[in-house]
């Protein structure tokens, strides 16, 4: 088939069974947009900012498990999208970003809207391409999708000069991807797995340390089975929320900086860490030399570079978590005695009793944690939950009753304010049956507020719940704790009228100060089925606790904060 580069892009997206592209047009990508105009195979959602297009594609990818696709123009369009690329890279989200570039003849001349896009995206993508000949385009696009979704998933960027999108060449998409230099190991080494299971069977206080890789590899079901069968308790990282049900007796909670006391103590006391798709991030480990000091480490990960990067693994197992856990289950059934860990369960139960995750209801103001819990009570499994970044994000990770993988979409590695709303749009697009909630902050929501328009136009009724503390709360908390209450540039007393703002875009807004009002607003927003902002006035000075101060040891948590 002899077609133009632009037509190839469309044909490739169709061949990849893409159902939605999030994007924003401009000069260098216009040939492709012209072909988008002519086709009916997939939907194009016009976000109102390129950053939002990429975040929406991330949200879509996370909720659906498919590769997200975003499309943007050269220069400023591309640079606007970079934050999304970096975000997807840090959180291993499969994504293909297609950007326009100035024509080949102008590359290197500082042409209008020219920027060295692949130079910029190199450190924040799994791989990138500058296409110099339309004849390469089918192969490159196919590789891009393949690389994005296989191995450790990640974003792939394809930069296409305008003249290449006009160039006619042969389109053949049937050839299988054959990359001599890229062959991810997916099955775990059998001998190593056997040794690991023997080690677990001999341990007294084993602990599953579940990371986001479990969600990415669709291994949650198997991990549930493994923990149930062996009765080994589990902690989840921030990224792994929803792997085990919130009410699973074996799930301790989240660990790390704002993890529960019991989760962090379990990690400090365990003699056998079974790390599944987790990467020993500094927000999880605290002080490395004190982390899981008494334990042997089994580390299962698809990315060899993650294994023993920060903490030495006694049993390194490189492979797809899903395959490895599948390989582990029959061996575990034979060798691990689930009755062996009763004592360990008791110890953990005691930690839980000593300092459970909790908050105090006091004063007239709503507590932000209550709002999160309440959404959980009212919607539970029926909602998908996205967040922005800050205190509201941590409270959501702590208090929402997650019931399934892919229910939880939040920016972990990069911590990108402005992620939540566009991501929630992508989540909604992937799962129209469920309510898509973005739990956000009064600071973060303004970082992609223009997406109200996208939500209205494309009928994506995301409900934004602002836990409004009139602060850049998380930064304010650090200033309170570590900077002697010098609240430098974090007071957000000056605010827009969020109700009017929602209204101005054609959505619906609520200002909420009581529990009754909150329930009513949420109910009404769901019924109205348009994009909503529920602006909840919450206690201004609430802190996220417990907390491991940066660089501190997990077992040394700040459990409460008393006004001095």
């Amino acid at each position, binding site marked *: 088939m002899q077609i133009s580069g632009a037509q190839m892009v469309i044909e490739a997206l169709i061949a990849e069974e893409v159902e939605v592209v999030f994007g924003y047009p401009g000069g260098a990508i216009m040939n492709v947009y012209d072909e988008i105009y002519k086709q009916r195979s997939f939907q194009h959602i016009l976000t109102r900012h390129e950053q939002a297009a990429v975040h929406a594609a991330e949200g879509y990818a996370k909720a659906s498990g498919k590769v997200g696709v975003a499309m943007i123009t050269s220069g400023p369009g591309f640079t606007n999208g970079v934050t999304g690329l970096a975000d997807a890279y840090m959180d291993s989200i499969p994504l293909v970003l297609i950007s326009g570039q100035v024509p080949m003849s102008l590359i290197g001349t500082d042409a209008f809207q020219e920027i060295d896009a*692949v*130079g910029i995206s*190199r*450190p924040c993508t*799994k*791989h*990138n391409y*500058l296409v110099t000949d339309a004849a390469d385009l089918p192969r490159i696009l196919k590789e891009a999708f393949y*690389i994005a979704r296989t191995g450790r998933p990640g974003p792939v960027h394809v930069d296409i000069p305008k003249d290449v999108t006009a160039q006619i060449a042969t389109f053949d998409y049937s050839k299988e991807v054959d*990359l*001599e*230099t*890229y062959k991810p190991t997916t099955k775990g080494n059998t001998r190593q797995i056997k040794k690991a299971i023997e080690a677990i069977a001999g341990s007294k206080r084993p602990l599953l340390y579940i990371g986001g890789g479990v969600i990415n590899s669709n291994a949650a079901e198997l991990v549930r089975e493994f923990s149930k069968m062996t009765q080994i308790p589990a902690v989840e990282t921030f990224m792994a929320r929803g792997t085990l049900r919130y009410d699973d007796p074996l799930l301790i909670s989240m660990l790390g900086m704002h993890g529960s006391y019991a989760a962090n103590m379990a990690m400090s006391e365990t003699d056998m860490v079974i790390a599944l798709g987790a990467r020993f991030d500094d927000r999880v480990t605290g002080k490395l030399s004190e982390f899981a000091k008494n334990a042997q480490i089994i580390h299962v990960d698809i*990315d*060899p*570079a993650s294994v*023993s*990067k920060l903490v030495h693994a006694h049993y390194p197992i490189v492979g797809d978590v899903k395959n490895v856990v599948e390989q582990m289950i029959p061996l575990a059934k034979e060798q691990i005695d689930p009755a062996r860990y009763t004592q360990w369960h008791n110890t953990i139960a005691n930690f839980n009793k000593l300092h459970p995750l909790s908050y105090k209801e006091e004063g007239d103001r709503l507590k932000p944690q209550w709002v999160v819990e309440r959404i959980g009570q009212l919607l539970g499994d029926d909602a998908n939950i996205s967040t922005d970044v800050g205190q509201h994000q941590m409270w959501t990770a702590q208090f929402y009753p997650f019931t399934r993988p892919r229910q939880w979409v939040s920016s972990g590695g990069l911590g990108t304010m402005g992620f939540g709303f566009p991501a929630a749009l992508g989540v909604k697009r992937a799962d129209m049956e469920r309510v898509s909630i973005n739990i956000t902050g009064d600071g973060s929501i303004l970082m992609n507020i223009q997406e109200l328009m996208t939500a209205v136009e494309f009928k994506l009724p995301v409900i934004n719940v602002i836990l409004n503390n009139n602060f850049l709360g998380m930064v304010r908390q650090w200033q309170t704790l570590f900077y002697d209450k010098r609240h430098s540039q974090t007071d957000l007393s000056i605010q827009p009228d969020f109700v009017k703002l929602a209204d101005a875009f054609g959505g619906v807004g609520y200002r909420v100060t009581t529990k009754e009002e909150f329930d009513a607003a949420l109910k009404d927003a769901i019924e109205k089925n348009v994009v909503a902002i529920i602006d909840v006035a919450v206690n201004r000075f609430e802190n996220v606790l417990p907390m491991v101060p940066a660089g501190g040891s997990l077992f040394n948590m700040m459990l409460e904060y008393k006004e001095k």
Partner: protein
Amino acid sequence: MEQTERRVISVIVMNEASVLSRIAGLFSGRGYNIESLTVAPIPDSKYSRLTIVTSGSVRVIEQITKQLHKLIPVLKVYEHADLVETEMALVKIPMSESLGDIEALTHAYNGRIVNVGSDTMIVTVSDEPSRINHFLEAIKRFHPKEIVRSGSVALER
């Protein structure tokens, strides 16, 4: 602090435009040292070979090789233990210095005089990097005007 070691790493990569920037970017982005880096196509193949001299703790070196491997166009990474390593140097020396003495010194380091002009001559040596260091120390007394080193190339024994 963990002990740091000097290491020679060879990387076989696809011969494509952006590969050098990927590798250089990896080293700078992750804060790894590059003492020297050489690159040239492998004859009659679609690959190039890079020889990178770096230093770091055992853990850092392990990360370097793994991170290199993670780059899509990288085929193989060798972290050499037992290797033959060679480097070359070119030195420009004023003609006013003693030709005979220079020739003798250069010979001792597998070298020769490759160019003689009206004002300056150029000598070349090719040897192990530590011997190159010695040579460059010794040649100082002939007041070299310019020195260029190639960086190491290496092969496993």
